[in-house]
Protein backbone atom coordinates (compact mmCIF):
# COMPACT_ATOMS: atom_id res chain seq x y z
CA UNK A 1 0.00 0.00 0.00
CA UNK A 2 1.09 3.53 -0.62
CA UNK A 3 1.67 6.10 2.05
CA UNK A 4 -1.21 8.28 3.01
CA UNK A 5 -1.34 11.40 5.09
CA UNK A 6 -2.86 10.08 8.27
CA UNK A 7 -3.85 11.57 11.57
CA UNK A 8 -2.62 9.48 14.47
CA UNK A 9 -6.03 8.79 15.96
CA UNK A 10 -7.45 7.66 12.65
CA UNK A 11 -4.31 5.71 11.88
CA UNK A 12 -4.35 3.49 14.94
CA UNK A 13 -8.08 2.91 14.67
CA UNK A 14 -7.80 1.86 11.07
CA UNK A 15 -4.69 -0.18 11.86
CA UNK A 16 -6.64 -2.07 14.48
CA UNK A 17 -9.33 -2.79 11.94
CA UNK A 18 -6.75 -4.07 9.49
CA UNK A 19 -5.26 -6.21 12.24
CA UNK A 20 -8.56 -8.01 12.54
CA UNK A 21 -10.05 -6.17 15.47
CA UNK A 22 -13.59 -7.45 15.71
CA UNK A 23 -14.97 -5.23 18.39
CA UNK A 24 -14.36 -1.77 19.76
CA UNK A 25 -15.90 -0.35 22.92
CA UNK A 26 -15.04 3.15 24.00
CA UNK A 27 -16.09 6.46 25.41
CA UNK A 28 -15.31 9.88 23.94
CA UNK A 29 -12.46 11.83 25.41
CA UNK A 30 -10.17 14.39 23.86
CA UNK A 31 -7.54 13.96 22.44
CA UNK A 32 -8.45 10.47 21.24
CA UNK A 33 -12.09 10.90 20.25
CA UNK A 34 -11.43 10.75 16.51
CA UNK A 35 -10.45 7.12 16.95
CA UNK A 36 -13.82 6.32 18.46
CA UNK A 37 -15.53 8.31 15.73
CA UNK A 38 -13.60 6.46 13.05
CA UNK A 39 -14.61 3.18 14.63
CA UNK A 40 -18.24 4.27 14.78
CA UNK A 41 -18.18 4.62 11.03
CA UNK A 42 -15.97 1.77 9.94
CA UNK A 43 -16.86 -1.09 12.21
CA UNK A 44 -20.57 -1.29 11.36
CA UNK A 45 -19.66 -0.84 7.70
CA UNK A 46 -17.55 -3.99 7.99
CA UNK A 47 -20.14 -5.87 10.00
CA UNK A 48 -18.05 -5.67 13.12
CA UNK A 49 -18.92 -4.44 16.56
CA UNK A 50 -18.77 -0.81 17.60
CA UNK A 51 -20.38 0.32 20.80
CA UNK A 52 -20.12 3.61 22.59
CA UNK A 53 -20.14 2.57 26.21
CA UNK A 54 -21.77 4.58 28.98
CA UNK A 55 -18.37 5.18 30.59
CA UNK A 56 -14.80 4.03 30.56
CA UNK A 57 -15.64 1.65 33.39
CA UNK A 58 -18.27 0.02 31.22
CA UNK A 59 -16.03 0.16 28.15
CA UNK A 60 -13.20 -1.78 29.75
CA UNK A 61 -15.64 -4.34 31.12
CA UNK A 62 -17.28 -4.77 27.72
CA UNK A 63 -13.81 -5.27 26.31
CA UNK A 64 -13.19 -7.78 29.08
CA UNK A 65 -16.34 -9.65 28.07
CA UNK A 66 -15.58 -9.64 24.36
CA UNK A 67 -12.01 -10.75 25.03
CA UNK A 68 -13.38 -13.59 27.16
CA UNK A 69 -15.38 -14.66 24.14
CA UNK A 70 -12.15 -14.97 22.20
CA UNK A 71 -12.24 -12.08 19.73
CA UNK A 72 -9.69 -9.40 18.99
CA UNK A 73 -10.96 -6.41 20.86
CA UNK A 74 -9.72 -3.00 21.82
CA UNK A 75 -10.56 0.25 23.49
CA UNK A 76 -8.90 3.62 23.52
CA UNK A 77 -9.03 6.53 25.88
CA UNK A 78 -6.99 9.27 27.50
CA UNK A 79 -5.66 9.80 30.99
CA UNK A 80 -8.74 10.39 33.20
CA UNK A 81 -10.64 7.78 31.26
CA UNK A 82 -7.79 5.33 31.65
CA UNK A 83 -7.76 5.93 35.41
CA UNK A 84 -11.31 4.62 35.45
CA UNK A 85 -10.15 1.45 33.75
CA UNK A 86 -7.69 0.43 36.43
CA UNK A 87 -9.91 -2.10 38.13
CA UNK A 88 -10.83 -3.59 34.78
CA UNK A 89 -7.21 -3.84 33.68
CA UNK A 90 -6.36 -5.69 36.83
CA UNK A 91 -9.22 -8.14 36.23
CA UNK A 92 -8.11 -8.64 32.64
CA UNK A 93 -4.61 -9.51 33.76
CA UNK A 94 -6.02 -11.69 36.51
CA UNK A 95 -8.14 -13.61 34.00
CA UNK A 96 -5.54 -13.85 31.27
CA UNK A 97 -7.56 -12.55 28.36
CA UNK A 98 -5.94 -10.63 25.51
CA UNK A 99 -6.83 -6.95 25.30
CA UNK A 100 -5.42 -3.94 23.49
CA UNK A 101 -5.75 -0.46 24.99
CA UNK A 102 -4.54 2.70 23.32
CA UNK A 103 -3.92 5.54 25.76
CA UNK A 104 -3.47 8.99 24.22
CA UNK A 105 -2.19 10.86 27.25
CA UNK A 106 -3.10 14.42 28.17
CA UNK A 107 -2.12 16.88 30.86
CA UNK A 108 -2.99 16.09 34.47
CA UNK A 109 -3.54 15.36 37.29
CA UNK A 110 -7.30 15.71 37.61
CA UNK A 111 -9.19 17.16 34.71
CA UNK A 112 -6.01 18.92 33.66
CA UNK A 113 -6.13 19.73 30.01
CA UNK A 114 -6.17 18.10 26.60
CA UNK A 115 -2.65 18.92 25.55
CA UNK A 116 0.01 16.25 24.99
CA UNK A 117 1.67 14.75 28.04
CA UNK A 118 3.57 11.71 29.22
CA UNK A 119 2.45 12.14 32.79
CA UNK A 120 0.92 8.68 33.05
CA UNK A 121 4.09 6.64 32.61
CA UNK A 122 3.98 5.32 36.15
CA UNK A 123 0.27 4.65 36.02
CA UNK A 124 0.59 2.50 32.95
CA UNK A 125 4.07 1.06 33.14
CA UNK A 126 4.25 0.31 36.85
CA UNK A 127 0.68 -0.93 37.03
CA UNK A 128 -1.95 1.52 38.21
CA UNK A 129 -4.40 -1.21 39.05
CA UNK A 130 -4.15 -3.37 42.13
CA UNK A 131 -2.05 -6.50 42.32
CA UNK A 132 1.24 -7.63 40.93
CA UNK A 133 1.25 -7.01 37.21
CA UNK A 134 2.76 -4.87 34.54
CA UNK A 135 1.12 -4.54 31.17
CA UNK A 136 3.13 -4.74 28.00
CA UNK A 137 3.54 -1.09 27.04
CA UNK A 138 4.50 0.08 23.56
CA UNK A 139 5.37 3.71 22.91
CA UNK A 140 5.30 4.94 19.31
CA UNK A 141 6.98 8.11 18.12
CA UNK A 142 5.62 8.34 14.59
CA UNK A 143 2.29 7.65 12.98
CA UNK A 144 3.89 4.75 11.16
CA UNK A 145 5.07 3.29 14.43
CA UNK A 146 1.67 3.91 15.97
CA UNK A 147 0.17 1.83 13.19
CA UNK A 148 2.75 -0.91 13.37
CA UNK A 149 2.69 -1.17 17.14
CA UNK A 150 -1.09 -1.28 17.20
CA UNK A 151 -1.00 -4.24 14.87
CA UNK A 152 1.71 -5.85 16.93
CA UNK A 153 -0.20 -5.18 20.11
CA UNK A 154 -2.94 -7.56 19.01
CA UNK A 155 -0.43 -10.29 18.30
CA UNK A 156 1.36 -9.81 21.59
CA UNK A 157 -1.90 -9.69 23.51
CA UNK A 158 -2.87 -13.04 22.09
CA UNK A 159 0.56 -14.55 22.35
CA UNK A 160 0.65 -13.90 26.08
CA UNK A 161 -3.07 -13.68 26.83
CA UNK A 162 -2.27 -10.34 28.29
CA UNK A 163 -3.04 -6.68 28.24
CA UNK A 164 -1.02 -4.57 25.82
CA UNK A 165 -1.12 -0.80 26.13
CA UNK A 166 -0.09 1.44 23.26
CA UNK A 167 0.99 4.51 25.19
CA UNK A 168 1.22 7.77 23.29
CA UNK A 169 0.84 11.39 24.15
CA UNK A 170 -1.81 13.66 22.71
CA UNK A 171 0.40 14.88 19.92
CA UNK A 172 0.65 11.35 18.52
CA UNK A 173 -3.12 11.33 18.30
CA UNK A 174 -3.34 14.73 16.63
CA UNK A 175 -0.36 14.77 14.30
CA UNK A 176 -0.73 14.02 10.59
CA UNK A 177 2.07 12.51 8.64
CA UNK A 178 2.52 10.08 5.79
CA UNK A 179 2.27 6.46 6.75
CA UNK A 180 1.32 3.15 5.28
CA UNK A 181 -1.52 1.08 6.60
CA UNK A 182 -1.17 -2.68 6.62
CA UNK A 183 -3.32 -4.80 4.35
CA UNK A 184 -6.69 -5.88 5.69
CA UNK A 185 -6.39 -9.09 7.64
CA UNK A 186 -9.52 -11.19 7.66
CA UNK A 187 -11.24 -11.46 11.02
CA UNK A 188 -11.17 -14.77 12.77
CA UNK A 189 -14.08 -17.07 12.08
CA UNK A 190 -16.26 -17.83 15.07
CA UNK A 191 -15.20 -21.46 14.99
CA UNK A 192 -11.55 -20.42 15.15
CA UNK A 193 -11.80 -18.74 18.50
CA UNK A 194 -9.25 -19.99 21.01
CA UNK A 195 -9.95 -23.14 22.99
CA UNK A 196 -10.07 -21.29 26.31
CA UNK A 197 -12.69 -18.81 25.14
CA UNK A 198 -16.31 -18.63 26.23
CA UNK A 199 -18.11 -19.92 23.18
CA UNK A 200 -20.63 -22.27 24.75
CA UNK A 201 -19.59 -25.62 26.15
CA UNK A 202 -20.48 -27.64 23.11
CA UNK A 203 -18.65 -30.94 23.02
CA UNK A 204 -16.20 -29.88 25.68
CA UNK A 205 -16.02 -29.08 29.36
CA UNK A 206 -17.15 -25.62 30.33
CA UNK A 207 -14.62 -22.80 30.17
CA UNK A 208 -14.42 -20.32 32.99
CA UNK A 209 -12.89 -16.85 32.85
CA UNK A 210 -12.23 -15.69 36.38
CA UNK A 211 -9.71 -13.86 38.50
CA UNK A 212 -10.68 -15.10 41.94
CA UNK A 213 -8.41 -17.53 43.74
CA UNK A 214 -9.72 -17.55 47.23
CA UNK A 215 -7.02 -19.80 48.64
CA UNK A 216 -3.83 -17.78 49.05
CA UNK A 217 -1.70 -20.74 48.07
CA UNK A 218 -3.59 -21.07 44.80
CA UNK A 219 -3.50 -17.34 44.19
CA UNK A 220 0.24 -17.41 44.80
CA UNK A 221 0.56 -20.14 42.24
CA UNK A 222 -1.31 -17.97 39.78
CA UNK A 223 0.90 -15.03 40.68
CA UNK A 224 3.96 -17.13 39.99
CA UNK A 225 2.49 -18.12 36.67
CA UNK A 226 1.99 -14.45 35.85
CA UNK A 227 5.51 -13.76 36.95
CA UNK A 228 6.85 -16.46 34.71
CA UNK A 229 4.87 -14.95 31.87
CA UNK A 230 6.35 -11.58 32.60
CA UNK A 231 9.80 -13.10 32.59
CA UNK A 232 9.15 -14.52 29.15
CA UNK A 233 7.97 -11.12 28.05
CA UNK A 234 11.06 -9.50 29.51
CA UNK A 235 13.26 -12.00 27.69
CA UNK A 236 11.56 -11.66 24.32
CA UNK A 237 9.81 -8.40 23.83
CA UNK A 238 12.26 -5.61 24.51
CA UNK A 239 12.14 -3.02 21.74
CA UNK A 240 14.04 0.20 21.29
CA UNK A 241 15.58 2.37 18.62
CA UNK A 242 19.03 3.88 18.60
CA UNK A 243 20.13 7.01 16.84
CA UNK A 244 23.66 8.30 16.55
CA UNK A 245 24.86 6.39 19.56
CA UNK A 246 28.14 5.37 17.96
CA UNK A 247 30.96 6.94 19.90
CA UNK A 248 28.51 9.03 21.84
CA UNK A 249 29.65 10.68 25.04
CA UNK A 250 26.15 11.54 26.01
CA UNK A 251 23.14 9.30 25.63
CA UNK A 252 19.70 10.77 25.65
CA UNK A 253 16.90 8.45 26.67
CA UNK A 254 13.44 9.56 25.64
CA UNK A 255 10.30 7.86 24.37
CA UNK A 256 7.44 8.84 22.11
CA UNK A 257 7.15 12.47 21.12
CA UNK A 258 9.87 13.43 23.58
CA UNK A 259 12.06 10.97 21.70
CA UNK A 260 11.28 12.64 18.38
CA UNK A 261 12.02 16.03 19.79
CA UNK A 262 15.25 14.72 21.23
CA UNK A 263 16.14 13.30 17.84
CA UNK A 264 16.00 16.77 16.33
CA UNK A 265 18.10 18.07 19.18
CA UNK A 266 20.64 15.30 18.70
CA UNK A 267 20.96 16.23 15.07
CA UNK A 268 21.52 19.84 15.90
CA UNK A 269 24.00 18.98 18.62
CA UNK A 270 25.96 16.66 16.36
CA UNK A 271 26.17 19.54 13.92
CA UNK A 272 27.75 21.49 16.73
CA UNK A 273 30.18 18.65 17.23
CA UNK A 274 28.72 17.33 20.42
CA UNK A 275 28.86 13.55 20.50
CA UNK A 276 25.39 12.77 21.62
CA UNK A 277 23.04 9.97 20.67
CA UNK A 278 19.55 8.83 21.46
CA UNK A 279 18.10 5.66 22.87
CA UNK A 280 14.39 5.63 22.28
CA UNK A 281 12.71 2.83 24.25
CA UNK A 282 9.75 1.51 22.32
CA UNK A 283 8.70 -1.12 24.82
CA UNK A 284 8.35 0.64 28.16
CA UNK A 285 7.53 -2.67 29.71
CA UNK A 286 9.58 -4.70 29.21
CA UNK A 287 12.05 -1.88 29.64
CA UNK A 288 15.39 -2.00 27.84
CA UNK A 289 17.31 -2.02 31.13
CA UNK A 290 19.99 -4.16 29.63
CA UNK A 291 20.74 -1.78 26.79
CA UNK A 292 20.67 1.24 29.06
CA UNK A 293 23.11 -0.49 31.38
CA UNK A 294 25.42 -1.24 28.47
CA UNK A 295 25.26 2.37 27.39
CA UNK A 296 26.03 3.49 30.91
CA UNK A 297 29.40 1.84 30.59
CA UNK A 298 30.10 3.57 27.30
CA UNK A 299 28.92 7.13 27.68
CA UNK A 300 29.88 9.76 30.18
CA UNK A 301 26.45 11.04 31.00
CA UNK A 302 22.86 10.41 30.31
CA UNK A 303 20.05 12.83 29.76
CA UNK A 304 16.47 11.73 30.12
CA UNK A 305 13.84 13.86 28.40
CA UNK A 306 10.20 13.40 29.26
CA UNK A 307 6.94 15.26 28.99
CA UNK A 308 6.38 14.88 32.70
CA UNK A 309 8.08 15.63 35.99
CA UNK A 310 10.43 12.67 35.83
CA UNK A 311 9.00 9.18 35.72
CA UNK A 312 10.85 6.99 33.23
CA UNK A 313 14.03 8.48 34.60
CA UNK A 314 13.67 6.07 37.53
CA UNK A 315 13.92 3.15 35.16
CA UNK A 316 16.99 4.65 33.61
CA UNK A 317 18.52 5.13 37.05
CA UNK A 318 17.64 1.55 37.95
CA UNK A 319 19.65 0.42 34.95
CA UNK A 320 22.51 2.88 35.29
CA UNK A 321 23.05 2.14 38.99
CA UNK A 322 25.06 5.25 39.52
CA UNK A 323 27.68 4.48 36.86
CA UNK A 324 27.27 7.84 35.15
CA UNK A 325 25.27 10.93 36.04
CA UNK A 326 21.67 10.80 34.86
CA UNK A 327 20.29 14.24 34.06
CA UNK A 328 16.68 15.02 33.54
CA UNK A 329 14.79 17.52 31.46
CA UNK A 330 11.04 17.54 31.61
CA UNK A 331 8.15 19.72 30.54
CA UNK A 332 4.77 19.20 32.08
CA UNK A 333 1.14 20.09 31.81
CA UNK A 334 0.79 19.62 28.08
CA UNK A 335 3.85 21.58 27.07
CA UNK A 336 5.80 19.80 24.36
CA UNK A 337 9.49 20.52 24.72
CA UNK A 338 11.15 22.16 21.76
CA UNK A 339 14.28 20.76 20.13
CA UNK A 340 15.98 24.02 21.01
CA UNK A 341 15.35 23.48 24.70
CA UNK A 342 16.71 19.97 24.58
CA UNK A 343 19.70 21.22 22.67
CA UNK A 344 20.34 23.66 25.49
CA UNK A 345 20.24 20.82 27.97
CA UNK A 346 22.63 18.81 25.86
CA UNK A 347 25.02 21.74 25.82
CA UNK A 348 24.77 22.02 29.57
CA UNK A 349 25.46 18.35 30.11
CA UNK A 350 28.26 18.50 27.60
CA UNK A 351 29.93 21.44 29.20
CA UNK A 352 29.73 19.65 32.53
CA UNK A 353 31.58 16.62 31.24
CA UNK A 354 35.06 16.13 32.67
CA UNK A 355 37.78 17.03 30.20
CA UNK A 356 38.89 13.88 28.42
CA UNK A 357 41.42 11.95 30.44
Amino acid at each position, binding site marked *: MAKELLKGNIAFAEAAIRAGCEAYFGYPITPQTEALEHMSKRMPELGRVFLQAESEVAAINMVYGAASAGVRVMTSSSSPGVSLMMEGLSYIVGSEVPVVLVDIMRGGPGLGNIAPSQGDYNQIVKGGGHGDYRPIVLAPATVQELIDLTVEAFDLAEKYRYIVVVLADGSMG*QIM*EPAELPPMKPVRKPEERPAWALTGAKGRDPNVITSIYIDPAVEEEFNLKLKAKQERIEANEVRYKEIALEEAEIAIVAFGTAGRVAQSAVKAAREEGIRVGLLRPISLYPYPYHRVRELASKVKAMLVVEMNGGQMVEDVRLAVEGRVPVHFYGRMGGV*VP*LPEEVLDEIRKVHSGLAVPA
Partner: protein
Amino acid sequence: MQTEIIIAGFGGQGVLFAGQLLAYTALDNDLHVTWFPSYGPEMRGGTAHCTVIVSDEEIGSPIVRNPRAAVVMNLPSLDKYEPLVREGGVLVVNSSLVDRNPDRKDLSAIMIPANEVGEEIGDKRLANLVMVGALLQRLPVLTVEAVGQSLRKHIPEHRRNLLEANIEALKRGHALAAGEAVSA
Protein backbone atom coordinates in the same frame (compact mmCIF):
# COMPACT_ATOMS: atom_id res chain seq x y z
CA MET B 1 16.64 20.57 4.19
CA GLN B 2 13.75 21.13 6.52
CA THR B 3 11.21 23.92 6.25
CA GLU B 4 8.82 24.80 9.05
CA ILE B 5 5.66 26.79 8.46
CA ILE B 6 3.19 28.01 11.02
CA ILE B 7 -0.29 28.99 9.94
CA ALA B 8 -2.34 30.78 12.55
CA GLY B 9 -5.61 32.61 12.90
CA PHE B 10 -9.09 32.44 14.37
CA GLY B 11 -10.89 29.14 14.44
CA GLY B 12 -13.05 29.06 11.34
CA GLN B 13 -10.50 30.81 9.11
CA GLY B 14 -9.41 27.50 7.70
CA VAL B 15 -5.87 27.51 8.99
CA LEU B 16 -5.88 23.80 9.80
CA PHE B 17 -7.08 22.94 6.31
CA ALA B 18 -4.51 25.24 4.72
CA GLY B 19 -1.79 23.37 6.59
CA GLN B 20 -3.20 20.01 5.63
CA LEU B 21 -3.22 21.02 2.01
CA LEU B 22 0.47 21.82 2.18
CA ALA B 23 1.05 18.48 3.89
CA TYR B 24 -0.86 16.58 1.20
CA THR B 25 1.11 18.32 -1.48
CA ALA B 26 4.38 17.48 0.19
CA LEU B 27 3.34 13.87 0.42
CA ASP B 28 2.27 13.80 -3.21
CA ASN B 29 5.70 15.13 -4.07
CA ASP B 30 7.53 12.47 -2.08
CA LEU B 31 8.70 14.75 0.64
CA HIS B 32 8.65 14.05 4.32
CA VAL B 33 6.04 16.07 6.11
CA THR B 34 4.29 16.53 9.44
CA TRP B 35 1.20 18.53 10.24
CA PHE B 36 0.67 19.38 13.85
CA PRO B 37 -2.37 21.24 15.15
CA SER B 38 -3.01 23.19 18.26
CA TYR B 39 -6.34 22.14 19.53
CA GLY B 40 -8.54 23.75 22.10
CA PRO B 41 -11.22 22.35 24.35
CA GLU B 42 -13.86 24.45 22.80
CA MET B 43 -15.67 23.58 19.64
CA ARG B 44 -15.94 27.22 19.08
CA GLY B 45 -14.04 30.41 18.31
CA GLY B 46 -10.69 30.92 19.88
CA THR B 47 -7.41 30.79 18.07
CA ALA B 48 -6.01 27.91 16.11
CA HIS B 49 -2.71 27.20 14.53
CA CYS B 50 -0.81 24.39 12.95
CA THR B 51 2.78 23.68 12.18
CA VAL B 52 3.72 22.06 8.90
CA ILE B 53 7.21 20.74 8.45
CA VAL B 54 8.39 19.73 5.00
CA SER B 55 11.70 18.00 4.60
CA ASP B 56 13.70 15.76 2.36
CA GLU B 57 14.64 13.56 5.28
CA GLU B 58 13.04 12.03 8.35
CA ILE B 59 11.45 14.64 10.59
CA GLY B 60 12.10 14.69 14.30
CA SER B 61 10.12 17.15 16.34
CA PRO B 62 6.82 18.14 14.75
CA ILE B 63 7.06 21.56 16.34
CA VAL B 64 9.81 24.14 16.52
CA ARG B 65 10.28 27.39 18.31
CA ASN B 66 11.50 29.31 15.27
CA PRO B 67 9.74 28.45 12.02
CA ARG B 68 11.02 29.42 8.63
CA ALA B 69 7.69 30.99 7.77
CA ALA B 70 4.52 32.18 9.43
CA VAL B 71 1.16 32.79 7.81
CA VAL B 72 -0.89 34.93 10.19
CA MET B 73 -4.55 35.51 9.59
CA ASN B 74 -5.32 37.84 12.50
CA LEU B 75 -3.68 40.27 14.87
CA PRO B 76 -3.07 38.00 17.88
CA SER B 77 -1.28 35.60 15.57
CA LEU B 78 0.91 38.35 14.22
CA ASP B 79 1.75 39.45 17.73
CA LYS B 80 2.61 35.91 18.71
CA TYR B 81 4.52 34.61 15.71
CA GLU B 82 6.28 37.61 14.24
CA PRO B 83 9.00 37.52 16.88
CA LEU B 84 9.49 33.80 16.39
CA VAL B 85 10.10 33.53 12.67
CA ARG B 86 13.67 32.60 11.94
CA GLU B 87 16.00 35.33 10.77
CA GLY B 88 15.50 35.94 7.08
CA GLY B 89 12.27 33.98 7.12
CA VAL B 90 8.89 34.66 5.59
CA LEU B 91 5.89 36.35 7.16
CA VAL B 92 2.55 36.52 5.36
CA VAL B 93 -0.01 38.77 7.01
CA ASN B 94 -3.73 38.96 6.37
CA SER B 95 -4.10 42.69 6.05
CA SER B 96 -7.89 42.39 5.90
CA LEU B 97 -7.94 41.76 9.64
CA VAL B 98 -4.61 43.12 10.74
CA ASP B 99 -4.18 46.85 10.97
CA ARG B 100 -0.49 47.12 11.61
CA ASN B 101 2.62 46.35 9.63
CA PRO B 102 5.18 43.89 10.93
CA ASP B 103 7.93 45.38 13.05
CA ARG B 104 10.79 43.15 12.01
CA LYS B 105 13.00 44.31 9.18
CA ASP B 106 14.88 41.08 8.61
CA LEU B 107 11.96 39.13 7.24
CA SER B 108 10.48 38.75 3.84
CA ALA B 109 7.12 40.07 4.94
CA ILE B 110 4.03 40.68 2.90
CA MET B 111 0.56 42.07 3.61
CA ILE B 112 -2.23 40.36 1.73
CA PRO B 113 -5.86 41.55 1.91
CA ALA B 114 -6.92 37.95 1.85
CA ASN B 115 -10.52 38.34 2.94
CA GLU B 116 -11.21 40.93 0.31
CA VAL B 117 -9.50 38.89 -2.35
CA GLY B 118 -11.47 35.88 -1.26
CA GLU B 119 -14.70 37.76 -1.43
CA GLU B 120 -13.76 39.00 -4.88
CA ILE B 121 -13.36 35.44 -6.01
CA GLY B 122 -16.64 34.61 -4.40
CA ASP B 123 -16.22 33.62 -0.76
CA LYS B 124 -14.26 35.12 2.09
CA ARG B 125 -13.59 31.60 3.30
CA LEU B 126 -11.09 31.42 0.45
CA ALA B 127 -8.80 33.76 2.34
CA ASN B 128 -6.74 30.88 3.64
CA LEU B 129 -5.72 29.72 0.18
CA VAL B 130 -4.98 33.25 -0.94
CA MET B 131 -2.52 33.34 1.95
CA VAL B 132 -1.04 29.97 1.01
CA GLY B 133 -0.56 31.17 -2.56
CA ALA B 134 1.27 34.20 -1.29
CA LEU B 135 3.39 32.09 1.03
CA LEU B 136 4.54 29.84 -1.79
CA GLN B 137 5.63 32.78 -3.81
CA ARG B 138 8.00 33.78 -1.03
CA LEU B 139 8.92 30.28 0.08
CA PRO B 140 8.97 28.09 -2.97
CA VAL B 141 9.15 24.84 -1.08
CA LEU B 142 6.21 23.63 -3.16
CA THR B 143 4.71 25.04 -6.33
CA VAL B 144 1.25 26.50 -6.57
CA GLU B 145 0.59 24.05 -9.38
CA ALA B 146 1.50 21.12 -7.20
CA VAL B 147 -0.76 22.40 -4.47
CA GLY B 148 -3.55 22.78 -7.00
CA GLN B 149 -3.08 19.20 -8.12
CA SER B 150 -3.11 17.89 -4.60
CA LEU B 151 -6.19 19.94 -3.87
CA ARG B 152 -7.90 18.34 -6.81
CA LYS B 153 -6.93 14.94 -5.44
CA HIS B 154 -7.83 15.40 -1.79
CA ILE B 155 -10.66 17.89 -1.65
CA PRO B 156 -13.64 16.34 0.13
CA GLU B 157 -16.60 15.49 -2.07
CA HIS B 158 -18.95 18.04 -0.52
CA ARG B 159 -16.51 20.85 -1.26
CA ARG B 160 -15.66 19.89 -4.80
CA ASN B 161 -17.84 22.68 -6.14
CA LEU B 162 -15.37 25.12 -4.62
CA LEU B 163 -12.36 23.52 -6.30
CA GLU B 164 -11.83 26.00 -9.08
CA ALA B 165 -12.38 28.94 -6.77
CA ASN B 166 -9.79 27.49 -4.42
CA ILE B 167 -7.26 27.16 -7.17
CA GLU B 168 -8.01 30.66 -8.28
CA ALA B 169 -7.39 31.83 -4.71
CA LEU B 170 -3.99 30.16 -4.64
CA LYS B 171 -3.05 31.80 -7.89
CA ARG B 172 -4.28 35.22 -6.86
CA GLY B 173 -2.31 35.02 -3.68
CA HIS B 174 0.78 34.02 -5.55
CA ALA B 175 0.39 36.77 -8.05
CA LEU B 176 -0.22 39.37 -5.39
CA ALA B 177 2.93 38.35 -3.58
CA ALA B 178 4.90 38.39 -6.77
CA GLY B 179 3.66 41.80 -7.81
CA GLU B 180 3.57 43.66 -4.61
CA ALA B 181 6.43 44.31 -2.29
CA VAL B 182 5.55 45.69 1.05
CA SER B 183 7.82 47.77 3.14
CA ALA B 184 8.15 45.59 6.17
